[in-house]
């Protein structure tokens, strides 16, 4: 299957006023993103993630190499109709309400007014902002702004979704919802590229990752393939009383020649936090920010099979 994104020897050098090379932000970057996968761009600050993302969007022009997005140059205007982008900072017009924001971005695509309104309402519901639809975006908390930013990225039902730090500024519930949303979108055949500092988030949702350092690609591959320690195995057992555990460990030591380590597995902090909040929320109905459900449900227009849309 033809890759959605193909980068070959991609280079980006920023120049100063006199056109002298100043910073080589991306050096000889080669990777591809396959249809329907969630691809993560990882790296510390200044590693070239955002520069790569901006080149994918056509906002920056590569100084070397080849880049094709959805089979066309990244700056092709028609191709942008099939892309959704959520930037790192929610730069939305502060004088528009949530509904007007989605309506405005919807108008930039060839949607009928009725379809635009339907998508707007469904997306507002999806990100839990229906109650704040008439509030100015400028008055939103950072988390609410991130949600509306995610919603605007999906208004055109894109084939390729680029998410720059999608969970930054969100509380753990919001983070979980965005991650669930990413997984749900991927299940519907969307291709997603995300960059993030939060390694846990990337690990949770990405099929493949690329790690950049100083503009150079250091690692590329499937998450499982890169993280799996092939020389060790882990066995989960029900908790055993000490008198039954000791002979088992002794037998394992005898078989492997190595003293086995054991402990009680810890719950995932995210899961624990979500359970605690759910309990607390059940006790009070008061909510001021985004109205969050336990699980995110994709907007119906995103949830339909491609041929029916």
């Amino acid at each position, binding site marked *: 299957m033809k890759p959605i994104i193909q980068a070959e020897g991609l280079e980006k050098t920023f120049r100063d006023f006199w056109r002298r090379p100043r910073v080589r932000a991306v050096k000889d970057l080669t990777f591809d993103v396959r249809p329907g996968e969630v691809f993560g761009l990882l790296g510390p600050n200044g590693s070239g993630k*955002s*520069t790569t993302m*901006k*080149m994918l*969007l*056509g*906002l*920056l*022009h590569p100084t070397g190499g080849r880049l094709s997005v959805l089979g066309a140059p990244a700056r092709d*205007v*028609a*191709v*942008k*109709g099939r*892309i959704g*982008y959520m*930037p790192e*900072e929610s*730069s*939305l*017009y502060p*004088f*528009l309400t949530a509904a007007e924001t989605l309506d*405005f*971005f919807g*108008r*930039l*695509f*060839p949607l009928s007014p009725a379809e635009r309104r339907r998508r707007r309402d469904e997306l507002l519901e999806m990100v839990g902002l229906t109650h704040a639809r008439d509030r100015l975006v400028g008055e939103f908390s950072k988390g609410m702004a991130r949600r509306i930013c995610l919603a*605007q990225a999906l208004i*055109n039902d894109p084939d390729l979704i680029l998410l720059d730090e999608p969970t930054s500024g969100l509380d753990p519930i919001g983070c979980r919802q965005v991650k669930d949303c990413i997984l749900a979108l991927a299940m519907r055949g969307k291709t997603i590229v995300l960059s993030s500092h939060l390694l846990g988030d990337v690990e949770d949702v990405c099929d493949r990752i690329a790690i950049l350092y100083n503009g150079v690609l250091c690692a590329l591959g499937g998450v499982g393939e890169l993280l799996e320690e092939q020389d060790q195995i882990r066995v989960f057992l029900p908790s055993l009383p000490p008198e039954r555990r000791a002979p088992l460990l002794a037998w394992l030591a005898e078989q492997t020649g190595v003293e086995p380590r054991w402990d009680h597995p810890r719950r995932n902090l995210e899961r624990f936090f979500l359970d605690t909040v759910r309990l607390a929320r059940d006790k009070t109905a008061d909510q001021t920010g985004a109205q969050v459900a336990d699980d995110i449900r994709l907007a119906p227009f995103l949830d339909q099979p491609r041929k029916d849309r």
Partner: protein
Amino acid sequence: MRITGAIFLLTLRSLARSRFLICILFLALALVVVLPVAIQDDGTVTGRVQVLLRYTLAAVTFLLSVGTLGVAPGLVAGELETRHLQQVLVKPVRFGQIWAGKWLALVAVNAVMLALSMLLAQALLNWNLRASRLTPQQTAELSRTVLVSRVNRAPAPDAGGGVVRPGAERRWLFHHVPEKETGQPLTLRIQFITPNFEENRELDGEWSLGAPGKAPFFSKRLRVRTFLPQEIVIPPPPGPLPETLEAVYVNREPDAVLFHAEQGIRLLAPKGAYGPNLVRAYGLLLFNLALLAAVGLTMGSLFSSPVAVLAAFFALALFSFSGYIGSVARTGVFYVPHHHEDGGGTGHEEESEPGWAARHLEPLLKAAYRGADKVLAPVRRLDPLERVAGGERVSPAEVGRGFVVLIIFGSGLMAALAAGVFRRRETG
């Protein structure tokens, strides 16, 4: 259109919240109210209305120009800096569509602000005239000289300037004189001086107007004041007006008389009504503001905010000084020569040897002025302020020419420049 419409509506919302623009609107409206109280006129009703129209329209236009150029660059450069525009640029949108939407919004806002200011100014003028309880003569003079629409014909083949020695005669031909409007007089507008620059001196002379080679239908010996433009009202002949008229002046003064090089003599013939003329002038003023909006947006597309604002205001300065630039381009003189009190301003002056810089830079500067004049001349000719205050006609053809020059050509060029440069510009 869909995308341009979306950007247009968004920009309207943004402009409606611009405090700077709201301040400009209030300042413009305040000026319309305050200027009639503050401005000194020559004591006549005609002079007062002329000054009011001239200064009110000029002040309002200047303020709206400043407002437009203060806001327009920020609509692109500012939004790029706040990263709002990147959110739009990653959608299937061409920069030309963004530019057009923003420009249309600026033009729409200017159209409303200019209309409000002009309506208020006209309403205040009408109220002022009613309150002044004008005599029938004053009302007649006003509707003959200011609140009127008159075609301004320059003599052929030259503009009418030159010297007329004592006792000598000078003739001017005016072609394409419009058909007579019932009961409306013709007017000769004269601007001349004596060689010793005496202001407000009344010069004795014989004036006549008629068909060439025939007995004139107007002939009179008059004393006409020097320095500022003066008007001689000429009752129309009983029959139809000839298409070509000849004006004759005989100098009955002991001194020579010097007619202004460009505005020496003009024939003003009534055509149409004042109201529609004001509407056409409004159209031309709006086209001028539209060009400034285009300049501001394009500067914002090329440069960062502060540089763009600076460049846009430089363009405004060029427009404002286009008259001076044109004068330098035509005469090659950068300044008006100072005449000595005792020398009588004969033009003979002691000149020192110009320095190296002057010798080498002056030709370059003059070439720059000539270049600038070539660009600015079409715009300068489309400024209706002076003419509306002088009761001169702004023809529909001029409005059409204004649309072509200022909108299609000027603003179109700006849009093409912005789109061309933006295609190569990185916005990440």
